[in-house]
């Protein structure tokens, strides 16, 4: 389990879990689950298009996820954000269907873009993933205060002259970056579930932003490690285990929050986070 191709899987899984935990904390805080689903899922069309014209799929993924991030950010200023996201997603998927109809792509490759192929990671894929992951984490670090303020205290953010639509777009670009790096390796499903379940669970356990962020990373790491072990033993897809464990953490977190709110009449609130910000 810890030799040969599995070493690469453990390494890359750890990187992806770390990035997913960090970015996911803000995905949940900002209610950005739909773009976090739409960008990785739609970006696969870019890979299909790149295959068609004989370019590196990573470039296609990057172009499509960045285009989706900027397009959603731009259009959402005039329309409803969720409708805009849905339109961007279906347009990208439809382009993907068109590309696939023109190519001789094998079905297993589509399957791996959606559901991942983490056990088939090569050493050469490690460096680009690690670099893009570093970019994401640094970007979140730089934007940290702005992301927190615009999410939980829009009035204070406005008073400080922050422009929420710019922060929104910047965050969508971070999601796009995380997507480009992870989709070819772990698939669209895995990165999405990692960005929802563990962070949402972590927020149930603590009211403090830093603690929730740390908890999100820890739970994401535990999820990926446990999933890799289970997948290795059963031969079932990793994505299945990641989604089940992520949902499991969330269930535990909600149960804990429920129990605590009944014990002390205090729920998880945004106000406690404001004090920290």
């Amino acid at each position, binding site marked *: 389990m810890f030799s040969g191709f599995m070493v690469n899987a453990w390494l890359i899984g750890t990187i992806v879990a770390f990035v997913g935990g960090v970015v996911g904390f803000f995905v949940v805080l900002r209610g950005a689950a739909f773009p976090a689903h739409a960008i990785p899922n739609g970006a696969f069309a870019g890979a299909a298009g790149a295959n068609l014209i004989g370019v590196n799929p990573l470039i296609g993924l990057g172009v499509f996820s960045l285009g989706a991030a900027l397009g959603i950010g731009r259009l959402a200023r005039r*329309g409803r954000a969720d409708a805009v996201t*849905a339109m961007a*997603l279906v347009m990208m998927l439809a382009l993907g269907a068109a590309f696939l*109809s*023109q190519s001789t792509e094998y079905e297993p490759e*589509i399957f791996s873009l959606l559901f991942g192929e983490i056990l088939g990671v090569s050493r050469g894929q490690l460096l680009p993933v690690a670099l893009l992951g570093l970019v994401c984490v640094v970007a979140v670090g730089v934007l940290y205060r702005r992301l927190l303020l615009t999410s939980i205290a829009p009035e204070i953010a406005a008073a400080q002259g922050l422009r929420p639509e710019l922060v929104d777009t910047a965050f969508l670009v971070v999601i796009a970056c995380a997507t480009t790096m992870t989709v070819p390796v772990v698939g669209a499903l895995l990165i*999405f579930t990692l960005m929802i379940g563990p962070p949402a669970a972590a927020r149930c356990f603590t009211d403090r932003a830093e603690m929730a962020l740390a908890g999100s990373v820890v739970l994401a790491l535990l999820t990926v490690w446990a999933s890799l072990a289970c997948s290795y033993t059963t031969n079932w897809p990793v*994505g299945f285990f990641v989604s089940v464990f992520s949902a499991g953490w969330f269930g535990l977190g909600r149960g804990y929050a429920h129990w605590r709110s009944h014990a002390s009449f205090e729920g998880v609130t945004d106000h406690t986070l404001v004090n920290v910000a």
Partner: protein
Amino acid sequence: VDFLFEPGFFSSSPVHVALVIGAVSAVVSAVVGVFTVVRGQSFAGHALTDVATTGGSASFFYGISPLLGFLGAGVLGAGAMELVGVQRLRGRDVATGIVLGVATGLAALYLYLDATRSATTGAAQQILFGSIFTIASSTIPFVAAMSVVTLAVIAFIYRPLLLSSLSSELAAARGIASRYVGLLFILALAISVGLSSIAIGSILSTALLIGPAATSLRLTKTLRSAFVFACVLGVVCTWLGVLFAYDSYYWFPSSQGLPVSFFIVLLIFLAYLASGLRPIRRLAQRRRDPRDGVAHVLVTSGNAAVH
């Protein structure tokens, strides 16, 4: 005429089925879609297509009717979203995400098991993308009947649904149980989405649900005209898309046409973009409200609904 309609368009029976099923799905999706967009449930509407397709891949595995798989999974998923979701908008977002994640994970598992057990290729692609040209004409009566049921549910809860979508306070003051109205609505949404994803594929299902509704809500002044315009737009885009897809078989020397979903989505997307070119009405402009553009429509038609 031959320039526009390639030979055989009007005599081809797959085309007839596609035109009928497409129109039925477009109308039901448009009606349900207007409420979906107004209530800010686009994410749930899309997620339910993925949940339904999971049911599709599970039905392949267990050897039951795909129709049952699509509808059953959709209804279960909708129930789970309501159960997990708290009433706040942000909690709903996370609940939808969790249900969607589990459903996609199960889809991965079933597709893997399908592939290892029966080595049927093409199942994943069929389930994910579907095709309006490959459905059997025998499913038309069932799809039509379920569509009528969905529309009947919407008509039955129309007023309470409208009120609780506009203002939960107003609805509560009038003694409307918004929670149950919302539950009924999301079940109707699940059925409509499940039907359209088996009939026309999951991409088109979301496109026809959100696109025409969001476009018409930007262009019309009353909710009633929004319904009518959304239905017309959905049907027109679907029929033109079917026509283009049919013609596209003759466009390339390889006789490899482009998928019908591509054309329909492209038309819907262009219509949506075009509707955004109109200057924003002053009422919606006053602040960056997530319900912008709809606010106006709701105020006018809401009054009509109350009085």
